[in-house]
C-alpha cells in the first residue's frame, strides 16, 4: 500500500470538491449564512407573535371580598377588558396578558350598546356554570348511571372549548361574607371558630389539554395564590397574629449555579447532538459525489485502471469525505455558537430566564469536542462511502443514505435524554459512546473519573471505523457493485429464479435474511413469553421450548427446504469422525468452568437486571422442576434449534463465497444478540465462535449440537447436584459453593484453560475441507480465492 498514491488521490479529490460550486456552497457558505439568517428570522417571528392576551371571565364578582382587591376596579368610561390587580403577579407585565370580563361590565339597560363579544362571553359563561351545577348534582345523587354522568361531563367540556373563554372563575354566593365572618371570629378570638363550617369555594375552570387555557390558568392561579396570601396576611394582622404563622419553615433555597455552569450544561446537551448530526450531513454529499457521482460521470473506469489498488483508492476517498465531515461539523458549530450567543445577549430573558450572556465553552471543552469528533466523522464517512458505492447515480445514493440519517437522528435523541449516561456498557456502543462521553466531559459536574471511559470509547470507535472502512474496500472490490447495470426488477421473475434455480447451499443474502427473520420473530414472540409467570415454571419452560422451535428452528428449516437443493449439505447433516465428537465433548466440559467464571466476573460491566427478571430466572432453574424436563427444555431444545439455525443455515449462507472467519464471526454475533439478557450476550458470542470453528473444521453440525448440549447441561447440573460434598473434602481445592450452585476455583480453571487451549489449537490445525465447495475450487488454475466471489448471485 503506497501512502504516496493515497496522498495523490486525496489531494485530487479535495481539489476537485473545492472547485465544485455546489459543494463549496453547502459546506462553507450555507452554515455561515444559515444560522444568522435563522436568527434574524426567529427574532422577527418573536416580535410578530406577541403573547396574545387570554380571556378570563369572572362570574360573581360582587361576592369577592372587599379587600384586598383581586380585580382592578374599572375606571369610569373605560372601555375594553379589565385587568387583575398588578401586584398579584411576579412580573407586573403579566397582568396585561389577561383580559378579565365580569358581569358588572355590562352597561345598564338603555345605555350605550353592549359589546357583542362581552355579551357572548358572559352568556357562554352562564351556560357553563349551569352545566357545571348540573354535573355536580348528578354526581352527588345516587342511582345515576355512569353513562349519564359521562354525557354531562362531555357536554360541559364541549361547551367550554367552544366558548372563547380560557379560564372561568365562578365565585359562589356569600363568599366574601364568609371570609369576613371568619376574620371577625378570629379577631374576637371567639371559641366559635372551631365550629365554622366550610363554605363554598370559588371554582377556577380551565382545560389543561388546551395550550392557551393552560398558559392562562397558570397565570391566574399564581395571581389567585398571591391574592390568597394577601387575604391571609390581612386576616392575621387584623387578629394581631404574627404574619409568619402560616409559614413556620419557609426554607430559603440557595442555588449555587454559576452563569458559566448553566451555559456549560447547555453546551453539554447541545454539542454531542449537533456533532452527530453535522458530521453525518457533512459526510453525506461528498460521499455520494465521490462514489456514485464517479460512476455517473463515467470516470470510474479511468480510476480503476490507474496503478493505485482498490484499497488505496477507497482510503483516499475516505480521507476526503472525512475532511469534509469534520469541516462541516466545525463550521456549523462555530456559526451556530456565534449566532446563538449573539441572540441570547440581544434578546435575553425569555426561555432561559435571567441568562443574558452565555459564557462560551471552555478551551478544554472545545478540545474534547475536536478529539471526539474525529472518530465520529471517521465512522460516518466510511459508512456513507460504503452506502454510496452501491448507488449507480447521485439520486440513488440519496435513497440509500437517508435511512442512515434517520438512524443517527434517533440515536441523537437518545443521547439528549438526561437519564442516559456514560458507563462501561454504553462506552462500547458505536455512536452513542462518544456522544455520551462528550456530554459528560462538557457538563460542569464533569469529573476526572469519566476520563477513564475515554479509553474504551476511543478504542472501539477506531475499531468500528476500521470495520466500516473495510466494508467500503470490500464493496469497491466487487465488480457487481461497481459496474451495476440498471435492472428492471420483476417480482415474478425473481421469485421463480429464487425457487427454481436453487443452489445446494444458501446465498449470503439468504443467510442475512434468516437472521433478520429470527430477530423479528423473537420481537413478536415477546408478546407471548415476555412475562413469564414465576409461579408456573413448568408452563414457562414449555413456552420457552415452543419459542425456540418456532422462532429459531422453523425459519432456518423452512428457508433451507424452500431455497436450497440440499438441506443435508446446508445443515451439514453428516456423521463426523469419532475424534471430532470426542473433541466437542471434551471442549464443552473444559470451557464450561471458564465461561461461568468469566460471566460472573463481568457482571459489573452489564446493566443490572430488574428484580422481576431475576425472580423469573430463579424460578426457571428451581429445584422443584423435574431434572429431565429441565434438561430437555434448557439444554436439548436450544442445542438442536440454535445450532440448526445459526451454525446450520445461517453459517452456510454467510459462507457462500468460501470464506472462513466472516461467517463464523457474523453467525456468532447474531447468536449472541439473540439472547435476551445482556449478561449472556458476550459469553454466547464467544461460545458461538467456538461452535462455528467446530462446525467448520469437522464439516458437520453434530459435534456442535453435542457441545451445546453438554455445555448447557453442565450449567443446569451445577445448580442441581448440590454442594454438600465439597465441604471438608479434597474437592475444596477445585470447587466452591455459591448458594447451592457449584463454582470453580483457580486450579480447576487452570486445568480447564490448558485443556481448552490445546483442543482449540488442535482443531485449528485441522485441514480445511469445506463441504459446500463441491469440486468448484479444483477446476480453477488460479489460486486466489477472490475469483469465486465474482460469480454474482443476489
Amino acid at each position, binding site marked *: 500500500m503506497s501512502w504516496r*498514491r493515497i496522498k*495523490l*488521490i486525496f489531494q*485530487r479529490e479535495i481539489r*476537485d470538491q473545492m*472547485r*465544485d460550486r455546489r459543494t463549496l456552497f453547502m459546506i462553507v457558505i450555507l452554515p455561515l449564512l444559515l444560522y444568522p439568517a435563522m436568527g434574524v428570522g426567529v427574532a422577527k417571528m418573536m416580535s410578530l407573535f406577541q403573547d396574545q392576551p387570554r380571556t378570563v371571565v369572572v362570574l360573581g364578582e360582587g361576592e369577592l371580598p372587599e379587600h384586598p382587591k383581586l380585580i382592578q376596579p374599572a375606571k369610569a368610561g373605560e372601555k375594553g377588558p379589565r385587568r387583575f390587580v398588578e401586584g398579584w403577579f411576579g412580573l407586573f407585565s403579566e397582568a396585561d396578558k389577561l383580559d378579565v370580563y365580569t358581569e358588572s361590565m355590562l352597561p345598564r339597560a338603555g345605555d350605550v350598546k353592549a359589546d357583542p363579544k362581552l355579551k357572548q362571553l358572559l352568556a357562554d359563561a352562564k351556560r357553563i356554570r349551569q352545566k357545571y351545577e348540573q354535573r355536580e348534582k348528578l354526581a352527588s345523587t345516587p342511582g345515576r348511571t355512569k353513562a349519564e354522568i359521562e354525557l354531562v361531563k362531555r357536554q360541559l367540556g364541549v361547551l367550554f372549548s367552544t366558548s372563547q373563554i380560557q379560564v372561568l372563575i365562578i365565585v359562589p354566593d356569600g363568599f366574601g361574607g364568609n371570609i369576613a365572618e371568619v376574620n371577625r371570629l378570629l379577631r374576637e378570638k371567639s371559641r366559635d371558630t372551631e365550629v365554622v363550617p366550610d363554605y363554598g369555594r370559588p371554582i377556577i375552570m380551565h382545560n389543561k389539554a388546551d395550550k392557551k387555557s393552560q398558559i392562562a390558568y397558570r397565570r391566574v392561579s399564581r395571581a389567585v395564590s398571591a391574592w390568597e396570601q394577601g387575604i391571609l396576611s390581612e386576616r392575621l394582622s387584623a387578629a394581631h397574629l404574627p404574619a409568619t404563622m402560616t409559614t413556620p419553615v419557609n426554607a430559603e433555597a440557595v442555588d449555587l449555579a454559576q452563569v458559566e455552569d448553566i451555559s456549560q450544561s447547555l453546551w453539554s446537551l447541545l454539542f454531542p447532538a449537533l456533532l452527530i448530526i453535522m458530521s453525518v450531513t457533512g459526510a453525506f454529499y461528498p460521499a455520494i459525489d465521490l462514489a456514485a457521482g464517479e460512476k455517473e*460521470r*463515467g*470516470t470510474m*473506469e*479511468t480510476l*480503476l*485502471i*490507474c*496503478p*493505485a*489498488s482498490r484499497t488505496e483508492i477507497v482510503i483516499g476517498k475516505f480521507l476526503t469525505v472525512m475532511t469534509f465531515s469534520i469541516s462541516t461539523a466545525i463550521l456549523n458549530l462555530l456559526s451556530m455558537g456565534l449566532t446563538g450567543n449573539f441572540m441570547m445577549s440581544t434578546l435575553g430573558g425569555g426561555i432561559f430566564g435571567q441568562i443574558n450572556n452565555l459564557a462560551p465553552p471552555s478551551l478544554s471543552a472545545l478540545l474534547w469536542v475536536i478529539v471526539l469528533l474525529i472518530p465520529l466523522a471517521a465512522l460516518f464517512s466510511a459508512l456513507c462511502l460504503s452506502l454510496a458505492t452501491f448507488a449507480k447515480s447521485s439520486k440513488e445514493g440519496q435513497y440509500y443514505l437517508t435511512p442512515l440519517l434517520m438512524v443517527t437522528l434517533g440515536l441523537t435523541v437518545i443521547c439528549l435524554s438526561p437519564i442516559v449516561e456514560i458507563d462501561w456498557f454504553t462506552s462500547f456502543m458505536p455512536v452513542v459512546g462518544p456522544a455520551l462521553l462528550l456530554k459528560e466531559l462538557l457538563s460542569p459536574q464533569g469529573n476526572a473519573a469519566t476520563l477513564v471511559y475515554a479509553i474504551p470509547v476511543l478504542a472501539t470507535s477506531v475499531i468500528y471505523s476500521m470495520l466500516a472502512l473495510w466494508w467500503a474496500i470490500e464493496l469497491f472490490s466487487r*465488480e457487481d457493485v461497481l*459496474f451495476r447495470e440498471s*435492472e428492471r426488477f*420483476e417480482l415474478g*421473475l*425473481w421469485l421463480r*429464479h429464487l425457487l427454481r*434455480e436453487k443452489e445446494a447451499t444458501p446465498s449470503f443474502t439468504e443467510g442475512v435474511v434468516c437472521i433478520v427473520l429470527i430477530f423479528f420473530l423473537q420481537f413478536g414472540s415477546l408478546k407471548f413469553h415476555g412475562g413469564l409467570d414465576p409461579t408456573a415454571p413448568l408452563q414457562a419452560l414449555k413456552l420457552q421450548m415452543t419459542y425456540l422451535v418456532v422462532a429459531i428452528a422453523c425459519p432456518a428449516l423452512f428457508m433451507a427446504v424452500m431455497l436450497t437443493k440440499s438441506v443435508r449439505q446446508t445443515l451439514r447433516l453428516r456423521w463426523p469422525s469419532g475424534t471430532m465428537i470426542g473433541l466437542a465433548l471434551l471442549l464443552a466440559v473444559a470451557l464450561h468452568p471458564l465461561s461461568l467464571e468469566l460471566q460472573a466476573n463481568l457482571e459489573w460491566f452489564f446493566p443490572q437486571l430488574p428484580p422481576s427478571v431475576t425472580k423469573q430466572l430463579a424460578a426457571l432453574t428451581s429445584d422443584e422442576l423435574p431434572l429431565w424436563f429441565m434438561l430437555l427444555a434448557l439444554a436439548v431444545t436450544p442445542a438442536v434449534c440454535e445450532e440448526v439455525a445459526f451454525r446450520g443455515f445461517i453459517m452456510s449462507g454467510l459462507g457462500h463465497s468460501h470464506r472462513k472467519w466472516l461467517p463464523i464471526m457474523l453467525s456468532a454475533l447474531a447468536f449472541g444478540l439473540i439472547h435476551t439478557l445482556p449478561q449472556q450476550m458476550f459469553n454466547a458470542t464467544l461460545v458461538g465462535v467456538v461452535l462455528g470453528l467446530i462446525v467448520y473444521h469437522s464439516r458437520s453440525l453434530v459435534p456442535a449440537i453435542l457441545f451445546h448440549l453438554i455445555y448447557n447441561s453442565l450449567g443446569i447440573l451445577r445448580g442441581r447436584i448440590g454442594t454438600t460434598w465439597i465441604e471438608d473434602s479434597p474437592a475444596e481445592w477445585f470447587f466452591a459453593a455459591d448458594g447451592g450452585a457449584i463454582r470453580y476455583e483457580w486450579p480447576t480453571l487452570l486445568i480447564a484453560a490448558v485443556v481448552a487451549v490445546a483442543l482449540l489449537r488442535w482443531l485449528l490445525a485441522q485441514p480445511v475441507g469445506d463441504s459446500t465447495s463441491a469440486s468448484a475450487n479444483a*477446476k*480453477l*488454475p*488460479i*489460486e*486466489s480465492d*477472490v*475469483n469465486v466471489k*465474482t*460469480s*454474482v*448471485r443476489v
Partner: protein
Amino acid sequence: MIHAQDLTKSFADLQRGSVNALDHVSFDVQPGEIYGLLGPNGAGKTTCLRIISTVLRPTSGSAVVAGYDVATQPEEVRARIGFMSGNTGIYDRMTAREMVEYFGRLYGLEEDALQQRIEEIFETLQMHEISDRLGSKMSTGMKQKVSIARTIIHDPPVLVFDEPTTGLDVLVARAVVKAIESLRDQGKCIIFSTHIMREVEKLCDRIAIIHKGKILATGTIDELESEYDEPDMEELFFELISRNDAQVAAELA
C-alpha cells in the same frame, strides 16, 4: 506481450440465467503489432479488454500481460499498460495538464521526467491550447486527446483500445487512428477492438472475429480472406457470424 489462455467470464442474469460473456478465448499479441478484436455489440470485446487491463477478473483461464499475470499481479500489469475506451472519461473540473500530471504522478514518474514527457506529448498531439482548459469546457475531440495523453504518459509497452473512435467525427477519428499507428511504429504491443471495417483494414495486422464470447476466426486479413474466399472484410464478417448462428441453432434443435 499479451497472452490470453482460455479466458472465460460468466455473469448471472435474472432473465437469461448464467451468461458466458467470454467462452474460452485465447490469443497472443506481439510487440510492434496491432491486434484487432472485431465483433458485433455484446460479443464480449469490452469484457475481454477489461479483463486484460485488470478491471474485471476472469472466472477461469489466465492472461499474462507484459510478463505479469492479471489475476495475481494486477498492479504490475496496470503499471505497464495504457487503457482507453469510450467509457474512460476525463474529470470535468481538472485542466488537461492537471489530469495528465495526476496520472503521471500516480504512475510514479519523476517530476522532471514527467514535465518533459508532457511537453513532448502536448507537442505531438497539439494540445497546447487546451493545456489549461477545464474538462467540462472541452469538445469531444479535445477530450479524446486528453484521454490519449493520459494513456501514454508513462510510455507503457502495452496499449489497450476499446472502440476508441466511438462518437467521434471523421477528423478526430482520423487523428486517433494516426496516433495509434505511430505508437505501433514505436514498437508498442497494441490490442484494439472495433466494429468499423475501415479501421480494421487500415490498422490491424492481425484480427480475431469474436461473437457471443467465442473467437470464430483469427489471422491476418489476407489469410482470412483467402481461407474463406471472400475479399470483402464486411462480407466475410457477416458470413462468419451467420454461419456460427446457424450452427448454434442446429445444435440446439
